[in-house]
């Protein structure tokens, strides 16, 4: 940014030397990232590579052992509440209360986010995830796929500019996966910045503007999509992660 330039940074997310250790075991070591506003970053990596740890650090759920995360240019450790209001997180856990109905769950989260016109917003998002007919059913009675769609509705209720998706398709059957992809595409298109972790190379690459491969807590590959040959990507992934197919 030029001196005296007060325009916001073009980066929705920046990390500088981001590190996380659990005791003596490093989970992430010095991650440097820059994600432009409106871009979609897909993070690949085998189990234990540090993908979920990265999402937890970006979402303020975990505190870094070193380095920093900037959201819209602001350090999330200094402005945690403000940062969280800009984030929508979808994980393989739904963060929903099974004994409450869909509308009660959404109303609860809406109040926690201090949303105005909450009832209208709930109707809007629940229609978008195609679950209006189940609005008054308890979450525990819904299928896993439906619960995940409610989780998406929960995550976008406050219309966050940044979405963090941690393997959102885990545990879904093929039909539920197709349904959820359509819903996710609706919510992640346009101006929204997205960071998604996935094991699905084809799907992750298809959605990405930028790709990153993590292995043992280290970035071993980082490239913009235009520079990647989709056909050769599985081989690149295997090489980077030391896997053999």
């Amino acid at each position: 940014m030029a001196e005296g330039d007060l325009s916001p940074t073009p980066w929705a997310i920046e990390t500088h030397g981001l590190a996380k250790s659990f005791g003596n075991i490093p989970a992430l070591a010095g991650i440097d990232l820059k994600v432009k506003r409106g871009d979609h970053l897909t993070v690949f990596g085998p189990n234990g590579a540090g993908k979920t740890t990265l999402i937890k650090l970006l979402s303020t759920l975990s505190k870094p052992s070193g380095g920093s995360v900037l959201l819209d240019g602001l350090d999330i450790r200094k402005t945690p509440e403000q940062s969280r209001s800009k984030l929508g997180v979808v994980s393989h856990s739904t963060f929903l209360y099974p004994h409450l109905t869909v509308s009660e769950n959404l109303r609860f989260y809406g109040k926690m986010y201090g949303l105005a016109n909450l009832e209208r917003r709930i109707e809007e998002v629940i229609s978008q995830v195609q679950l209006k007919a189940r609005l008054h059913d308890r979450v525990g009675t819904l299928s896993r796929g439906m619960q995940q769609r409610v989780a998406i509705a929960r995550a976008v209720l406050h219309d966050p500019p940044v979405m963090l998706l941690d393997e959102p398709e885990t545990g879904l059957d093929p039909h539920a996966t197709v349904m959820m992809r359509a819903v996710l595409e609706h919510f992640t298109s346009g101006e929204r910045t997205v960071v998604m972790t996935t094991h699905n190379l084809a799907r992750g690459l298809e959605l990405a503007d930028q790709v990153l491969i993590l292995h043992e807590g280290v970035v071993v590959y980082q490239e913009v999509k235009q520079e990647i040959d989709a056909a050769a990507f599985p081989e690149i992934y295997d090489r980077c992660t030391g896997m053999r197919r």
Partner: protein
Amino acid sequence: MRELFTRVFAIFWKDLLSELRTKEVATSVLVFALLVVVIFNFAFESGEDTIGLVAPGILWVAFTFAGVLGLNHTFATEKENSSLEGLMLCPVERYVIYLGKLAGSFTFMLVVAAIITPIFLVLFNLPLCLPRLALIIVLATVGFTSVGTLFSALSAHTKAREIMLPILFLPVVVPVLIAAVKATGVVLDGGAWSDMSTWLQILVAFDIIFLVVSVLVFEFVIEE
């Protein structure tokens, strides 16, 4: 301030709705407290001279262990559903979560006390109308649940949380329990306000200390 209240109430209401639908905790806590009172009633016949000495202890043993049983679930249910992460993603300061959970634990304990106390008084042949006992219960419940909610969050991160909570929590809450037992003894003996004023002051002091400290340290307890 209104936003804070709305959010605290949202957490309280969410927990209350869940509990009303499952009755998981309420049933077990009430049955446990009732069992304690009934068993002690068999051990000490009503009308005996010793009743005045042991009755306050019996009441607070029932409340304490029933309370621990209830507090064990305060954060455990959030952990089981992974909804604690959802709660922690909300753009609120961590103490808001604490206050919401505290409101739930406090109300729950008071409901248990409101059901168990009259049964206890009847079983031990004691007068039913004791407004000063109600005051002691309210004051002690503030201290008990304010520190209990904190330790419930702490123990939720441990594997053996049902054992860890009483081990960690009971030694800390001892001053509140002693003051509550002593003040209850004065009330059941028909003593004057002045006889119990020191214990009430201790209760109020510990309520304030526990509440303030818990609000301040909750963030460090709940974070990974």
